[in-house]
């Protein structure tokens, strides 16, 4: 995605086309803007909608502000600060370097997006987790990138994935 597309998407997001419940944001405008850029870089719009289409930035803002512990919030806000301090034209590079810094981190066994998080996981891990969680549990992500079928009606344990091409929501 080029920068222009990203800006268009950001404008769309700002216009209120968000599917997540709007939360009382405690991240400031600059932090929100960077967060939206980063989320979209992790899960961009492709043949399916991207993180911004799915309202992920607002969701992450809500979790970071209202659900995170002070320790988690401090790590997250510091991560945003590091990205903000870097050249705005080099967001991909900044994210790559954050991923490298987090590469030695080994998440606890059984780590899922829904479990009790490891408070001290590095910023990149937190950001990626919240982006994945926010996207794949949104209505947009659940019904486009995933297949949503609340009442399957039968069970078949031998299906070729290729015939579906998508994972189920649960």
């Amino acid at each position, binding site marked *: 995605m080029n920068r222009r597309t990203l800006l268009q998407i950001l404008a769309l997001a700002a216009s209120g086309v968000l599917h997540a419940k709007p939360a009382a944001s405690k991240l400031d405008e600059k932090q929100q803007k960077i967060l939206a850029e980063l989320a979209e870089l992790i899960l961009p719009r492709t043949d399916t909608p991207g993180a911004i289409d799915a309202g992920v930035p607002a969701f992450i803002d809500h979790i970071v502000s209202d659900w995170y512990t002070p320790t988690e919030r401090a790590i997250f806000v510091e991560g945003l600060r590091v990205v903000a301090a870097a050249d705005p034209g080099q967001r991909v590079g900044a994210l790559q370097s954050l991923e490298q810094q987090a590469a030695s981190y080994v998440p606890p066994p059984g780590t899922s997006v829904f479990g009790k998080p490891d408070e001290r996981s590095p910023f990149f891990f937190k950001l990626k*987790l919240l982006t994945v969680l926010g996207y794949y549990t949104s209505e947009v992500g659940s019904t486009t990138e995933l297949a949503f079928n609340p009442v399957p009606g039968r069970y078949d344990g031998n299906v070729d994935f290729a015939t579906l091409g998508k994972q189920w929501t649960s």
Partner: protein
Amino acid sequence: MSESQQFDAIVVGSGITGGWAAKELTEKGLKVLLLERGKDVQHRSGYTTEHMPPWEMPDRGLFERDVYDRDYAVQSRARGFGYATQHYWINDRENPYVQPPGMPFNWFRTDVVGGRSLVWGRHVYRFSDLDFEANKKDGHGVDWPIRYRDIAPWYSHVEKFIGVSGKAEGLAQLPDGEFQPPMAMNVVEQAFKQRVETKYPERRVTIGRVAVLTEPLGDRGACHYCGPCARGCSVGAYFSSQSSTLPAATKTGNLTLRPDSLVESLEYDHQKRRVTGVRVIDTRTGARQKYTARVVFLCASAFASTQVLLNSRSEQHPEGLANSSGTLGRYIMVHYHGVGATATMPGFEGKYFYGNRPNTLYLPRFRNLAGEESKLDFTRGYGFQSNTFPIAWSSYWHRVPGFGAEFKQALRKPGPWFIFLEGFGECLPYADNRVVLERATDRFGVPQLRFEVTFRENERRMGADILRESVDMLKAAGASNINPLPEPAIPGTSIHEYGGARMGNDPRESVLNGHNQAHDAPNLFITDGACMSSSSCVNPSLTFMALTARAAGYAVDQLKAGAI
């Protein structure tokens, strides 16, 4: 409602056994008062999160951090606990119990009409004479006053009513029952079965026998494979009190259900040797009231029923009611659980599934079977449940490196097939595995229950064997990334709870006779897990239900004969 309102029977607890007692007693013409400590949950309308998509849940269903730590410190450790089910579970802060230092115990409890029948695992297996004869044969615990032939017809009676899907296997240690068609195995489970049974011809891998319908039964519909049963099922595809026993009891016109009614203790007439009243606390107002009836069934769960008896103290029986043997509260058993292994199964990439089957594989006991000369360093045995599924995006995301379009594309495919072998081991009955009343009381002034329950040498040796065999079977099945799980879960985690008021032939060493009738009070029956003299290694609920139905039949006969 006044004390003068007369009931023929009072049933304490509306869960799996209480629902059964209410159904059987009302159908036999008794006017029944069913007391439930929890709040009411109506079938269908009470299942407020059924089929709710994640985006409609607060915080997408993430646990409520402060609330969980404050109010559900224990319950939030239960499998399946979460936003979609938390309204069924008990508030730990308001309803404390005591875990002495070094003796953690997970007491997983609900606080609603229907009890744990709403959230249970639904696996149902018959005990066999391997279980009923075990105590007599190896000398642990007291001999069961019944054998398989005594309970077999009641197993059938229960299975026909609750609906059990499963496969007949002709195994002596896991008797077949009245089965609806079994659920299908997935492609990996079929391979696992074939490979394990080839390497170990004496072992059997079968699909779980579950109280989930594969065909309609009466007013209840077949499973539609949505997956999260524990939110509640409006079509009644799985057995719960709401879907099954309570409607049957209500239909008779003989049932009075009273939610929010915590039973504090029983009143006993020492001269007549009868329970003469049930003391109830209204959990909304704290008001106390007494109810009377000719017969009382305690079905509050193994530990809660034991607590009621321990708290029914008087000058004549300071150590609790029906405790002339001194065994009340003792011989507590819980399944040895948590040891096993996980792995991935290569060779099934590209294979996927349709529908969410609420069932696992089951691998029946193969250790210390009847007629075998045991070469093992432990007595009794264990079985396995096995979950097998492709690792979903929610757990696989952090193993896919990078970000951007390639990451998104890579995460579109499911991860490898995961397999989890999870042992359930029989725990021996030990006199000093017990529950006692603490001096500290709860918000109603009821003494808290204190758990002193630990696993011992036999369980640890069995655990070592469970670990070895899980790893070896996964190897035989061609699994990769085998990850042994050597640590047992905290006692209680299996939610398979037994003992406290055990059955036995001799009133000097047991609380109940072979009809779940208290030796000391002929009009008192205890038919939940408290009655169990041993724990078998199979999931217990079916046996609790069969014993309840059997005891209810006996109680009505005794009432009609004027004997109680």
